[in-house]
């Protein structure tokens, strides 16, 4: 449904995408992960026809997006990272507006507005102004406006940012339901557990390229390691074999015996152990898999990746 080949994109301060290849098939959920500034939103913008790649191609349902944007757009639903709803309109009016924009006719509009509101737990807020909704409800509405026309392909760029637990669950349920009905989904998030819950195919975007793709289970079994973190009250001290990340120390290489590694570190730290505020040993998961694949941690809110 979505085929991205060799996409390159640069801005004034340098290249962001250096030849991205990615496919998403019908009914598949692809979770794209990468550090802030990796180019996830740029790639989605190119795929949705909002900006042009410097080179490469994007095809949606076999249609070249650059050459036939409007035809390709009929197959697409987009919920950008930035919230985009009309705060002065009611929930129902917002849904109707985007339904008509997507080309639905009046009878279809009414039915789909009711269905999507029900699926996202907004049926009792249809008459409320969108500006009066909670953050999580706004996120649900924002996501709902992207799927009214049952698109073949949906781009969800960090759809659960700022969402509460209930909203997150509703959105994930909606994504699962869409995929079960055959919709291809490209989903970006910093919450890697969401991708585990969605049983998504992981695509790791790093240094401008997709450096790894694969099912969640395979990625974890192949790459994930036990994670060890030492937390300090102030700036972490230097320790051979460990990388300083602000107030934490993490091993430079995967550790086979986390307990022994911690013991050796504490012995070397000596009196500086008094500055420790916490020692964490985490089970293998997508976080450690991401670190192993890219050599970087995936830290939400950071503007730069911390190199191994």
């Amino acid at each position: 449904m979505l085929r991205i080949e060799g996409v390159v994109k640069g801005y004034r301060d340098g290249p962001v995408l250096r030849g991205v290849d990615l496919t998403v098939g019908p009914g598949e959920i692809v979770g794209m992960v990468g550090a802030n500034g990796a180019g996830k939103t740029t790639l989605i913008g190119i795929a949705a026809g909002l900006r042009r790649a410097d080179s490469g191609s994007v095809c949606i349902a076999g249609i070249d997006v650059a050459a036939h944007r409007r035809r390709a757009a009929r197959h697409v639903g987009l919920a950008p990272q930035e919230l985009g709803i009309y705060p002065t309109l009611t929930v129902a009016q917002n849904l109707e507006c985007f339904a008509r924009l997507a080309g639905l006719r009046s009878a279809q509009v009414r039915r789909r507005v009711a269905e999507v509101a029900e699926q996202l737990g907004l049926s009792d807020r249809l008459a409320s102004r969108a500006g009066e909704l909670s953050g999580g409800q706004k996120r649900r509405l924002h996501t709902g406006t992207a799927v009214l026309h049952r698109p073949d392909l949906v781009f969800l760029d960090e759809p659960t940012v700022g969402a509460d637990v209930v909203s997150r669950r509703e959105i994930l349920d909606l994504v699962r339901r869409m995929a079960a009905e055959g919709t291809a989904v490209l989903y970006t998030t910093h919450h890697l557990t969401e991708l585990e819950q969605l049983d998504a195919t992981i695509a790791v975007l790093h240094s401008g390229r997709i450096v790894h793709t694969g099912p969640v289970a395979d990625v974890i079994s192949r790459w994930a390691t036990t994670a060890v973190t030492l937390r300090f009250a102030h700036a972490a001290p230097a320790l051979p074999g460990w990388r300083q990340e602000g107030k934490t120390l993490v091993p430079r290489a995967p550790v086979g015996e986390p307990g022994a590694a911690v013991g050796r570190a504490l012995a070397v730290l000596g009196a500086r152990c008094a500055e420790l505020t916490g020692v964490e040993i985490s089970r293998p998961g997508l976080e450690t898999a991401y670190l192993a694949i890219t050599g970087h941690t995936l830290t939400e809110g950071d503007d730069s990746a911390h190199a191994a």
Partner: protein
Amino acid sequence: MLLISDPGAFLASIAMPLVLGAFLLPVTRDQLVLAGRTDAGGEQVVPGMAVLFGFIGVQFVGMLFYREHAWGTWDRLRASPASTLEIVAGKAAPLYLSQVLQVTVVLLAGVLLFDYRPNGSPFAIAALVVVFVAMLVAFGVMLVALCASMDVALMLGSLGGMVMAGLGGALAPVSSLPGWTRPVARATPAYWAIDGLRAASLDAARLFDIAGDLGMLLGFTVLFSLVAALRLRMDDVKIGTT
């Protein structure tokens, strides 16, 4: 839907000319009497206020476009199957209708409140309103195309509109302004709108008699539309406020 959901500014754009008109009526009537129109009423102030506040109403064009950027909905419009023309026309059409309504209500209120008794053809007045508002909307879209921020667009629209309206005779007859302003006034669309409305209000003008004014207003509409079409970039980042 957006204009109806937030009608405060629109209602103010109808109320303000009527309030200002009430204060200006005595002096504008005296100006007409001095010019030999001994039975004059609101034939200077009502068209003048309609034109002046028509220009000030250009702010609605800015609001509807820039707010889309502030609300995050502009990229959603661009990502839809709608073409650029459909998106712009979809915003311009309701603005056009609301501006026609605004100008018409001001003129009709002038009849009821300010003794405005145009002696010309109502079709001539209607044609002027239709074409004048088309020019206003084109002017507004041109400002959107040229200005990165809503504040700059609104400032240029309001200030520029007031200057053009003043030079064109909206606040005082052109004949009462300094001589050097008259050639400058002819270069503004407001002059031709006021000239046509004045003819239809005081000189019993029919549609044919104001063809020149209509033609000039249409010319300005085409000019502003061309500049907008050449300069408008859908992927430009605009700074709006909510």
